[in-house]
């Protein structure tokens, strides 16, 4: 199983899509233009601090709010390897999978880790943090198909023979 | 010596500073957008002490004082034009931005060339020729000499 390490950015409960990317910036021409405003209502500096391979760990209901797909796209573009949260809001979850952004649901991790901790994720199996293992529940098959195809666009391209 | 930035006739206040920037918190925030629609590089290229040369009716349009203010904030030493629109002219004097009227200089001025401006004499010299600008009425010259209207107001205060 694929394994990776990453530095933790710790966020709270109910991180909504207006926090991930405020509406004000949604009409900017590209996700690239928007990404520097990610999380700005909550932590203005955060977008600039996140480095490739980092991991966001959050509380419950991550991504609640609007259907704006820029939210998972921006997180992916910032280089975030995966988001681990107690739970995810429905539309965000779907959008993230469609964009090939890995999401892991775990009820305990966010209470145990601190910001800056380095944790290890073994996909489909476990998270290793602070000397402890946290098991990962596998995703339903149809979602794994989309993730494995590299997102919904790629899956559709395969369907359309592009 | 001052570098010349040259503009045409009827440069209006929307060209000097467009309305979408006027409600920014301060003139400092606005100045980077000066002449955006006419010369997107102007705000970056202009240096303190440079001058603007223009044709007729410079600064026509709105009463926005942001227009002379951004020029002053960018360090523009003076505007020399064939004629000025009324409100711009008055605003410029009020904030202490020298505005000089010369009917002849526009036709000889070349963008990018250097000129020598003598504000006390009201003269401008380029290519060895000196042009004399129209004198301000003493009342306005007095405001300008004091550094603008606010300075003149403060002077009388205790």
């Amino acid at each position, binding site marked *: 199983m694929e394994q990776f390490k990453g530095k933790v950015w710790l966020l709270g409960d*109910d991180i*909504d*899509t*207006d*926090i991930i990317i*405020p*509406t*004000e910036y*949604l*009409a*900017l*021409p590209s996700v690239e233009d928007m990404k520097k405003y990610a999380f*700005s*209502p*909550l932590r203005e500096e955060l977008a600039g601090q996140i480095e490739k391979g980092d991991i966001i760990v959050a509380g*419950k*209901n991550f991504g*609640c*709010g*609007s*259907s*704006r*797909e*820029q939210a*998972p796209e921006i997180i992916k573009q910032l280089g975030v390897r995966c988001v681990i949260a107690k*739970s*995810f*809001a*429905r*539309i965000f979850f*779907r*959008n993230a999978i*469609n*964009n090939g952004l890995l999401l892991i649901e775990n009820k305990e991790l966010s209470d145990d880790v601190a910001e800056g901790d380095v944790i290890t994720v073994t996909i489909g199996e476990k998270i290793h943090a602070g000397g402890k293992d946290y098991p990962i529940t596998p995703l*339903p098959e*149809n979602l794994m198909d989309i993730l494995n195809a590299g*997102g*919904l*666009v790629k899956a*559709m*391209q395969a*369907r*359309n*023979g*592009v | 010596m001052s570098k010349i930035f040259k503009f045409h006739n009827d440069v209006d206040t929307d060209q000097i500073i467009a309305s979408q920037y006027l409600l920014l918190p301060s003139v400092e925030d606005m100045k980077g957008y000066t002449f955006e629609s006419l010369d997107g590089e102007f705000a970056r290229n202009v240096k303190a002490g440079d001058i603007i040369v223009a044709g007729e009716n410079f600064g026509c349009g709105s009463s926005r004082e942001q227009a002379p203010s951004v020029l002053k904030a960018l360090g523009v030493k003076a505007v020399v034009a064939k004629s000025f629109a009324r409100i711009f002219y008055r605003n410029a004097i009020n904030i202490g931005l020298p505005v000089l009227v010369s009917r002849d200089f526009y036709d000889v001025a070349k963008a990018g060339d250097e000129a020598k401006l003598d504000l006390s004499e009201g003269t401008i010299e380029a290519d060895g020729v000196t042009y004399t600008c129209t004198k301000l009425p003493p009342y306005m010259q007095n405001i300008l000499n004091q550094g603008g209207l606010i300075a003149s107001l403060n002077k009388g205060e205790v």
Partner: protein
Amino acid sequence: MGHTLIEKIVMKNTGDVSVSPGEIKTVKVDRVMIHDIFIPFVVDKFREMGFQKVWDQDKVVLIYDHLVPTSAVEDVRHFKIGDAFVKEQGLTHFHRADGICHQLMPEMGYAKPGNIVFGTDSHTTTYGCVGCFSSGIGYTEMAAVLGTGEMWIRVPETIKVVINGKLPEGVYAKDIILRLIGDLRADGATYKVLEFSGSTVDEMSVSSRMTISNMAIEAGAKAALFAPDEKTCAYSGVKMEDVDWLYADEDAEYCQVMEYKAEELVPVLACPSQVDNIHDVAELAGTKLDQVFIGSCTNGRLEDLAVAAKILKGKKVAPFVKLIVTPASRSIYQEAVKAGYIGILAEAGAIVTHPGCGLCCGRACGILTDGERVLATNNRNFLGRMGTSKVEIFLGSPATAAASAVAGVIAME
């Protein structure tokens, strides 16, 4: 074993004799809605996926509402891309400036009882007010639906919400849904459907039901459903016998049942900066306000404007307080003009804007700054939604909003 409303809609669509929560099903989509903010992204993804033509022109609705009116030069790019897509695909269901998408979808009959509809907006749950299974999706997913006409779904569990009795004076549908969200919390219904029933619900207008279904997403719900009745049929222009299959069985299985007595409900507000942070209006009375907003797909309908007009008649908005009123659609605006509500509101000093998302979507029409406080009738009070993160947003009913506008502080009708 009986079935819930959502299960019956899915069964009708797929032809299955029975479905149960947790199953993954592929459904045929009856209508899709795309709005101006996301049209460029949908078109991009649609092409990238290799599609040429939408699966059915009649089933696609394009609505400009978030960027109406434009407030930045870049906004127009969205219109240009949308206009070109409309022409290229021969779309006929297209609205340039007729109101908010979620109002127009049921109002224009694009979303009808028993339909399955997806939209590129989280408040797509609104159409459950007429017994339509509707939910929000992202633009990539929308592009795939445009090409295929299909969508996979996980059949959701259902939470049954029963409300019986007569609402006290001054308590409205908005107070019910806010209370419910407060009780469920912001994620209490994630992946689930809220199914509403009871005598209070039966008595409610379709508009009031719309207020409730609109906000179901704020508890994380996938959909919010009301079984169709005569009022629904009249509103949606369908016959009762065509939708008589759509009811919840007595022995349907629910993951949770919540019961409310209407008489016990009071006017409430969602306080900064979460929709589930619910407090009684009485508790907050006297809190100073800078602005009041009546509008949005939650509460910008005729009955909302009527309540506001009743309260504001012969009164004036408090000095130094702004009241902004944004009707939810063109036809609501027209009806409100004819009924005299708009005249009353304007006379009282309200700023009446053209129908659109207005302040709720945070792009124009009343943005605020540090230290300001607004009471609004819309659906979200997230940090930074209406300006800077130092703006405090309270959500309440149009009655509370109107009474507070007059008082200049939070006040009850």
